[in-house]
């Protein structure tokens, strides 16, 4: 009997199964796998940055074979680290005797946000300092290099990459932050991001057929999923969970994303 082909999807909360668990609707990896008639392995994780995404991708492909891989990249400034987490055995199964087990998990740090679900809190002053190192310049150059590295690692496996959320997010560090005009600052950091995209030596080395929406920014002729959804639904009423308050794709948004990737799949791989 022929084994079914397998799709590996990996990304942040734009990919994660959280929405299926919490709201009951399927997310794009599941919808895409159905269109492709493949089994789906969804490693999307809420809060994940691109280090987590690429790290988990590489860890997965050295362990197993996949027929098709789709990577939906996340915000560039997120930072990710692994740790040996402690888990209560009884949380897994109450029939197991009390005890703990240890498993390697990922921790996320969002230096550009006042809060995220951080295990080890950093105060806004410390985050502000960290942002001076992990700046838009640094994170944009690192992200573009990572895209090229991933493209090389996946050379012999059918794959697509796409940028999910906007590559840079408006810092929400409160009064300590130097720029207090959030809207203006969003435009400033977007311009800064584009400036460093253009400085990256990798901008012309990415295979644009396999990176949907390359080079990500509309000003450069590209797009992210966020741009794609905003273009179709500028008021954010149809494809988002809750307008701009919760910009994650809703059920219809996920359907659109799966169609976008499927259409590209037919063009490139059929």
């Amino acid at each position, binding site marked *: 009997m022929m084994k079914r082909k397998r799709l590996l999807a990996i990304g942040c909360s734009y990919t994660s199964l959280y929405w299926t668990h919490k709201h009951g609707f399927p997310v794009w990896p599941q919808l895409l796998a159905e269109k492709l008639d493949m089994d789906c392995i969804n490693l999307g994780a809420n809060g994940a940055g691109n280090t987590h995404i690429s790290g988990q991708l*590489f860890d997965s492909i050295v362990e197993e074979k996949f027929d098709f891989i789709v990577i939906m990249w996340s915000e560039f400034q997120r930072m990710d*680290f692994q740790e040996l987490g402690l888990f209560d055995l009884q949380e897994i199964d109450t029939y197991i005797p009390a005890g703990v087990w240890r498993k390697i998990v990922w921790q996320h740090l969002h230096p550009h946000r006042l809060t995220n679900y951080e295990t080890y809190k950093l105060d806004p002053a410390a985050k502000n300092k960290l942002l001076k190192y992990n700046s838009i310049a640094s994170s944009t150059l690192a992200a573009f*290099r990572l895209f090229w590295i991933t493209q090389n690692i996946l050379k012999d496996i059918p794959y697509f990459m796409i940028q999910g959320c906007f590559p840079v997010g408006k810092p929400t560090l409160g009064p300590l932050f130097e720029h207090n005009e959030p809207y203006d600052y969003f435009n400033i950091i977007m311009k800064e991001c584009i400036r460093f995209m253009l400085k990256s030596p990798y901008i012309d080395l990415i295979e644009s057929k396999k990176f949907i929406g390359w080079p990500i920014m509309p000003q450069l002729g590209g797009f992210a999923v966020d741009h794609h959804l905003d273009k179709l639904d500028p008021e954010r009423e149809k494809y988002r969970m809750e307008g701009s308050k919760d910009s994650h794709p809703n059920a219809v948004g996920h359907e659109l994303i799966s169609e976008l990737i499927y259409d590209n799949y037919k063009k490139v791989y059929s």
Partner: protein
Amino acid sequence: MSLFSKRKKLLAIGCSYTTSSWTKAHGFPVWPELLAKKLDWDYLNLGSAGRGNNYIFGKMCDTIIEDNYDLVVIMWSEFQRMDFEYLNKFNQIKWKHLHPHRNKTFGEGSEIFPIDNPWKRNLLKYNDIVASVLHNVRLFWTAQNILKDIPHLMIQGPKALCTPNFKDDPYPDDFWKSVNEDAISSLLKSPYIELINSKKFIGWPIYKQLGGMSIDSYFDDVDYDRKRYRIHHLLDSHPNTTGHEVISELIYDNYRSIYGVDDET
């Protein structure tokens, strides 16, 4: 190195164990220059003091997409160092680094934005031994893949992990032992430990306890009191002139045994 030279080219990259600043400061040649002489090649030395492995890997990628090299030698640095890029006032992209495990970050362009120790301790909770070992071993595998079609050798220079150094909260003397134990246990958890080509990674898997070595552990084996191969036996553990000669011989011997003798040179 002339832009128009047709001689073969060596690219060497690493931290202060590789940088040519020792030549400027003390007048002795460092291993990339000595190795290039043995090979009779041109060389480019991108070693830079204080850098971590993200600089080493990132700069190596940026360099090999711009030019062709006949051999790339990477001497990896301490695992917990962090590296970031920035645009300097001359509109050039440069690197700055941060040592969260140290009271003070060493090297050129270091800690442009000084950070308090309590904050560093919090950052170290993220960038801890487990995180840094798993990240770096993955990085070695990634580098090996990126360099698949280019002759290359890798080696660990300084010890991969060291005891955090915070003046206001000294760690106990035996903390070093637990750092090593945690590092080895994390290394053994990495899915890449068996995937690194040990012929091309001199001293893989780095730790003596696992049958590997770094430059530091190799030197300490043959020069226990650190008086022959180090700048200063107590104050500065960087390789001295003899140390650099020993390193270049070690790499040259490995180059010859893997890639053979080059008839063209």
